[in-house]
């Protein structure tokens, strides 16, 4: 069997290993158009919110609320974007958040205070990511299957730890972080963490060799391998990264909800994938932006907020959410193809 021949590419250049190298500039430009169209969708939503509920929606407290609610799922989505850009998928994010949040809030862990809770949440997240990564990269398992297995076992372990009980956090320093007094210049600490994760994620994906390798692996793994990229190790790191994001998100959720519960992170995998997709990340890999994903998260959170402020019930909310996903993707595709 002969290997398909691809031109050897130097991984230190900006080129993605695709058949048409000049496409890179086009991609950059189109990504910008995509971002603009997402901003347009967000602007329309803000207009709707402002018209229907001017007093409650256009309010500093509401802005703080929307951004806080977006923080937990936002951090998860940043990790998910990396995985999807590399051509993979991580179905276990919600379950990892659940496991990390209950492991970090057991009576035994809480004895170690703030540091113990933070450390446990992050390490459990990274540990689950490590297992995912090893299974996928070195066990040659399909990401869908490996992370589905992790979803099941992590949820099971979370249930075993909690025994179905709600674990209330009693460590004051953790609880205080979610209070209004902890806001710095009006910015909640959770939102700051979200912002920092977003900026780091953007830098890593766009300005580092690691980011270029991720795109290369997603675009064409065989070409990436021929170009000298250790594809397996790259995949391992990416699932580790997703696990790390889940660990951070779990800590944020503990601060936000003041507790750990095995039902935490319910359906996060779908929310994160949906946000990344409407943000312009290709499910087949090779393309995606952190800015788009974060805008996707903000669009979803804003929709939920507007519905709640207008006292619309969950049935209407779900129908409208589905319609808006379709609309957002169609609008994007149109604007992207006409330029």
């Amino acid at each position, binding site marked *: 069997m002969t290997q398909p021949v691809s031109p050897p590419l130097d991984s230190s250049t900006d080129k993605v290993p695709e058949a048409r190298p000049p496409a890179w500039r086009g991609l950059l430009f189109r990504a910008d158009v995509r971002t603009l169209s997402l901003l347009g969708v967000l602007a329309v939503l803000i207009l709707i919110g402002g018209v229907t*509920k001017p*007093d*409650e929606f256009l*309010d500093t*407290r*509401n802005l703080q*609320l929307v951004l*806080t*609610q977006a923080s937990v799922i936002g951090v998860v989505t940043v990790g998910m974007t990396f995985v999807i850009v590399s051509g993979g998928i991580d179905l276990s994010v919600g379950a990892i958040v659940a496991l990390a949040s209950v*492991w*970090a809030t*057991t*009576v*035994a*862990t809480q004895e*170690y205070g703030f540091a*113990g809770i933070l450390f*446990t949440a992050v*390490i*459990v997240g*990274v*540990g689950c990511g*490590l297992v995912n990564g090893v299974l996928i990269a*070195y066990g040659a398992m399909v990401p869908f299957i490996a992370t589905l297995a992790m979803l099941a076992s992590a949820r099971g372990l979370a*249930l075993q*730890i*909690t*025994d*179905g*009980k*709600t*674990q*209330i956090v009693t460590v004051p320093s953790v609880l205080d972080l*979610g*209070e*209004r007094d902890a806001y710095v210049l009006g910015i909640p600490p959770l939102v700051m963490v979200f912002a920092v994760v977003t900026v780091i994620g953007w830098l890593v994906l766009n300005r580092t060799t690691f980011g270029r390798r991720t795109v290369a692996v997603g675009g064409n793994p065989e070409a990436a*391998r021929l170009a000298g990229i*250790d594809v*397996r190790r790259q995949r391992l790191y990416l699932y580790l990264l997703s696990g790390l994001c889940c660990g951070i998100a779990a800590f944020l*959720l503990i601060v*936000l*909800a*003041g*507790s750990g*519960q*095995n*039902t*935490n*992170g*319910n359906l996060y995998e779908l929310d994160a994938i949906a946000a990344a997709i409407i943000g312009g990340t290709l499910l087949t890999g090779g393309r995606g932006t952190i800015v788009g994903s974060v805008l996707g998260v903000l669009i979803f959170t804003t929709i*939920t*907020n507007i519905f*709640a*402020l*207008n*006292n619309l*019930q*969950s*049935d209407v909310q779900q129908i409208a959410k589905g319609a808006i996903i379709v609309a957002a993707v169609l609008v994007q595709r149109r604007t992207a193809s006409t330029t």
Partner: protein
Amino acid sequence: MPEHMPFASRRGLLFGAAAVSAGAVLTACTSNEPSDSKDEPAGNNQPAADDKPGKQVTIGFAGPQADHGWLNAINDNAKSRAEKYSDVTLEITEGSNDTAQQIGQIETLINKKVDVLVVLPADGKALTQVGLKAMRAGIPVVNLDRIFNTPQAYRCWIGGDNYGMGLNAGHYIGEKLKGKSGARVIELAGLDNLELTKQRTQGFDDALKNYPNIKKVARQAAEFTVESGQAKMAQLLQAQSKFDALWNHDDDQGVGALRAIEQAGRDDFLMVGGAGALSAFQAIKQDDGVLKATVLYPPTMAASAIDLARALGQSKGIGGLAEFEIPSSLTLYSAVVDKTNVDQYMSTGFK
């Protein structure tokens, strides 16, 4: 694929070892046992219908997976009640939310020829057939809470009153806000996919109709989880800058709702919970927050179901009633627990 790569590099091994040892440290952290507290099973303080030992009865118990505080309390109540009786042997199955699996478990109990069955179905309608099968095999069935499709499938049904929960919550709030004109009330409901949520809301609305000065201005549905309770409550608080009372359907999601209330720095209203969690009872007793009462959906019903099953097995009636037979249906009262009577209920609170 002729891809030659060492399975693990030395650095990888080192890293792996570090990860494993971190894991070992962490496993010590999964314990949830406080150093010196023994979980007192709830429902042990009430007198049993008839404490005198009688004929030996084997009771088969099948319930759903205990992934929620209330369901966990159901299992605990059943077990501890059965242990109280020297003449009762309890055959308890591993809880399952899978209908097929639960049917299989109940069929196993039928084949074992237990004397009486207590079944809390994961889905009442879906398990009707197996209830019928047990009854036809001559095994009386005590149907716990989630009701079968037909009365032929059980000898006795015992369960909570969702409509009554809403009704009592509405009346409690109505009385508290009596004389206040233009009073505003909001509702944080449970999972909207469930019929019981609709019943609770219906009861609440019906009760409020008795108080023309009160208007329900908003309702949002959470998902019985702390996370959803926090998220939905935060939105409700933003939407309603001023209201007088809140009814929250479920104390588990109430943990999140209270967190959101605390984060928003609001204390200008009265809150009533639902179900009867220990954390809610404690907050009511302390009386330093907005939570002033909770409406019960008592998990002690599992203990009562064991009592009924024992009475059925021994062909007795229940004390306090003139009939020779136990009733075919028992709807439990959704009592309102507030500061005045919370001590009495404290031991029944679930975590």
